[in-house]
């Protein structure tokens, strides 16, 4: 684990600029109606921004693999909760009142 790894100032600044730029992009894209794709695009851009914050601001890039596993397992189990609950909701055959 790099004890004293200082990230150069330039990197922080460029990451901030990219993040702001992506925010503008995601707002602009949201105006155009791609139907169901809107959600996917918005989530993709958000994930890119999230990855940038994680890697550079939170120094995940310079930590060893253990911290990737910790963060990854957190996200994995949220997705697992969503995935199996969604399976239940989608495949529910609802009875109808025949009175």
């Amino acid at each position, binding site marked *: 684990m790099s004890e004293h790894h200082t990230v150069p100032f330039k990197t922080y600044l460029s990451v901030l600029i990219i993040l702001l730029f992506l925010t503008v992009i995601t707002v602009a894209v949201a105006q155009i109606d791609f139907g169901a794709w809107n959600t996917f695009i918005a989530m993709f851009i958000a994930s890119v921004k999230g990855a940038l914050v994680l890697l550079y601001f939170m120094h995940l890039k310079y930590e060893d693999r253990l911290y990737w596993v910790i963060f990854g397992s957190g996200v994995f189990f949220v997705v697992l909760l969503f995935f199996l609950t969604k399976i239940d909701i989608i495949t529910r055959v*609802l*009875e*109808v*009142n*025949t*009175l």
Partner: protein
Amino acid sequence: MIPLLFFSLKGYAQTSTEKLPPVTDYAEKLDTLYHFLVGISVVSCILVIVAFAYFSIRYRRKSEKEQGSAKVSHNTLLEFIWSFIPLVIFAVAFVWGWILYYDFKRPPENSLEIHVYGQMWNWTFVYKNGKKTTNEFYVPSHKPVKLIMTSKDVLHSFFIPTFRIKQDVVPGIYTSLWFKANRKGKFQVFCTEFCGTGHANMLARMHVVSLKEWEDWLAHDPYKGLSLAEIGKKAFQGRCTVCHTTTKEKRIGPGLSGLMGAKREFTNGKSLMVDENYLRESILNPSEKIVVGFPNQMTPFAGTLSEEELSGLIEYIKTLK
């Protein structure tokens, strides 16, 4: 310990089939699966118990300083075998369970549909021709019957032990159960999802009768030739006795004797003399006016009471002095 295991399992196997003889084909198939599972459990329990009982006796410590002498600390083949065999057995149980569940979830096309309404502490059954009954309902034998169920307040669960079937009754959506009884008789129905004070006495009784008897019962109007007050008394028995008494004694709800014309204060500050409109409103939509000192726990009876029964109830309450 082994004798305890044998005694209870022998007793168990004998009583469960004697106490709850299967009444539908599904129940018979389930019993075979169930006895297979219990058999596997007993065999595996005995195997492991005999193993560690034998080891315990055979390898008792002889001297204070004695150490264990097993040379081998793991054996990959043995470990593979005793993880693969349980996996196979569990897979067999899973598939067998799936086959039955597949059948349990698919009611035949032509099944007779009965609507079931669960509410805080009684069941109401509504047939196609509008006939409504509470806690007692009749079903023809040798015909597939499909129950379409919903709840009017909280979660309940419709469980017929002799038929080995159960399904939660969820407010907001309809769930269903189906069965085809092969034998006539009276069968107990339980509510198995916790629903408050009256959960333990939210019992219904199912009468499986021949087709002809069932059709007569369907056409028979239980209230024919009875005066309004007598109809009310009959309707009162099935639904209201869990919370209300016909005397002054307070249970969950107030005692109803001398109610007509009495003065009542409500939680919203207003108060009025009890009359027919107040009685009608408090039965159909009780949370409108809650008498001071009582919880707002009564579930509306709108939809499960016929007009005849409603006016009969009001007449009956008026007779209670």
